């Protein structure tokens, strides 16, 4: 290296940096294709179910009258719907503070082989200023049906 001319040293440094950044970019792109978790609403999930190993998010309305606590006291099950299709969800853990029937929820987890969605985490509407982003459009599009259903 010490034999390199000044111009060359700078060139070598630039090339090393560029190669590292390209490597980082390619690696990131490759990993994103496998690791990004996609967002589904129940209609999509029924039509094209994700692979059981794939981490995805399911968003929709918690259907009224479906929230049940299992005998162990910590597992709950409920049904998420978007006005057309419905997907049963199971979750072991403490429910978010404002999780109630008839309100929106985004569940993170995997779709089980039996068609039940196993959630590792629930994101509920925290307050008026915090609505999971995925639910904003959905509620706007399907507000009528949702109102009808929750009123029933």
């Amino acid at each position, binding site marked *: *290296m*010490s034999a*390199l001319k*000044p*111009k060359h*040293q*700078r060139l070598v*440094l630039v090339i*090393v*940096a560029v190669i*590292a*950044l390209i*490597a*980082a*970019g390619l*690696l*990131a*792109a490759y*990993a*994103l294709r496998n*690791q*990004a*978790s*996609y*967002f589904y609403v129940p209609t999509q999930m029924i039509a094209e179910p994700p692979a059981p190993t794939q*981490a995805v*998010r399911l968003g929709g309305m918690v259907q009224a009258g479906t929230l049940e*606590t299992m005998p*162990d*006291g*910590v597992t709950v099950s409920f049904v998420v719907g978007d006005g057309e299709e419905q997907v049963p969800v199971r979750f*072991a*853990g*403490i*429910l978010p*503070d*404002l999780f109630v029937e008839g309100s929106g929820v985004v569940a*993170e987890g995997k779709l089980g082989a039996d068609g039940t969605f196993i959630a590792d985490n629930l994101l509920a509407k*925290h*307050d*008026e*200023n*915090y*609505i*999971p*982003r*995925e639910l904003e459009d959905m509620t706007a599009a399907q507000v009528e049906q949702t109102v009808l259903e929750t009123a029933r």
Partner: protein
Amino acid sequence: MIAELGLAALWLAAALAGLQLIAGVQSVRQPDGPLASLARPAAVIQGVLAAFAFLMLLWLFAQTDLSVKLVAANSHSAKPMIFKLSGAWGNHEGSMLLWVTVMALAGGLIGYLERRLPEVTMQATLATQAFVGLGFYAFLLLSSNPFERLATPVAEGMGLNPLLQDIGLAFHPPTLYFGYVGLSVAFSFALGALLTRQVTPNFARAMRPWVLGAWIFLTLGITAGSYWAYYELGWGGWWFWDPVENASLMPWLAATALLHSVSVLAARDALRAWTIMLGVVAFSMSMMGTFLVRSGVLTSVHAFAVDPERGTFILVLLGIYIGGALTIFALRAGTVQEGERFTATSREGALVFNNVMLSAILAVVLVGTLYPLLTEAFGIRVSVGPPYFNPVAAIFTLPMLAVMAVGPLLRWRRDGAKRISKPAVFLTICVLLVAVLVTYLSNASLLAILGLAFAAALAVGSLLPLRGRNLLRTPLATWGMVTAHFGIAVALFGMASESAFSIEKLVAARPGDMTEVGPWKITLDGIEPVAGPNWTALQADLRASYKGGSAITLQPQSRTFWSPERETAESALAARWNGQLYAVMGSGIEDGRRQLRLWWKPFVPMIWFGGILVALGGFLSLIGRLTADLKRHYVRRRSAERREDAQV
């Protein structure tokens, strides 16, 4: 009246920023022009005025002046005083005012203090600082006026998001902002030096305290934010790769790289163009963070308002500043002379390697953070989480840690690999030993095993530069480096240990029930109602004993705030030297049982102790550099005086 005073001060400060810009540009072109002496005083007065405006806002919040829109929307007369004050920056407008204030104060300080650089470089620097400042004044005054009055005052304020009513969080945003905005000085210095062709070691010495200072605040801010997320959100995690967290991590990564390259430039006059580039990138990441958090493209507890107009405004500012700076860099970088040379196995070589690795990690985080926003533009919603960030970032972090452990042992300029072969072999054995041990004794994941092994090696490696030195004579800056590197090892140990050894338990318990979590026996004694100044709560009494020792009490709560109305879970923590017990109370079940979520997290506090050590290392370094600068200044003055005496 107070609100109008604040607004007037803000407009005046903006006008002074305009004057500072014109004066700066003028005197760069014509060093003895009529405006040449105005830029520095303009910067100082601008700083004072912005600080005054911010004080006025604090006053309004302290008094809970409900005729001001911002106070009415974010405060409440029943709030404790400290949260009334922190409410001033716990919202969009107030936090942007804080941003502008810190930026103006920083500009004022360099205008007042910095005398080492050629005056023309200082003028260019102050002009850049004013140019960036003007954009944010415009944003504040035109679309986010914090002093706006209501037509009719309201009877009572809306209150502050209860999640934000926390003593740790009261000081988290200002700390982070000092870091974000401190980097604006590095940005201005970098452009000033580039424009006036003064990329010299002296420039690096002038810039270094600012980079160090900003970096210390960023480190503390990120550490505090992580701890807040850990105990306040009640999810038991300490880092979620949330876009808002990434927004603070990215400037930190860039600032860490900048910190090291600026040292090379100061000590060895190498890496000139690279340092300028990092100066630009670091503050660009700060602005990008602001855009992500403030524009409403993200929804989280940090994103106060969703207003597309504001988002566009910040995006335009971002385009002007980042695009402009990169264009200037592209046009001018060729004029920066190549610095001193060095070989691959030298201190510079190791630092360059780590700079490149830090940049690669930055790229990985940036891509992962922006990817969901990009796909959303095409109508596909994705979220990117730990399964992406952890392994991909680790690929670049592990080589960096390896070089970090031995790099400080290398000499500047050129050195042989032979001189560090002994410590390198020793540290490699260290890594292998710990890795094998952990693999046998636990069923930790690969990343956790590697984390523990590298943490052990780095902890030993970081202390090696002190070997054979007189500890009392070792410069403070060296102590700073050793402390910061050791802090990284400590934090890494905490992270890996939390991931490898945590035990989680979820139960539904009746009063009197006992449950075991790892070495702990935990009994639910009872549940009772309690009340605070603006909330009521149910509180569980948990009696916990470690390996049959004497019992301690944990009291997690389920709180109901009544303004604004919402419930939060308050976690309870019990710390021992070797870890933390973490308890959260969930909802009640009809049969009288109550959900409890319990974790035993061995050595988890090391994460934040490590962060504090890293910041302390930066602080020692800063003190060391500043005293050395002062000494040099003093000696130079003395010798100049002596020369004058001799002439007389």
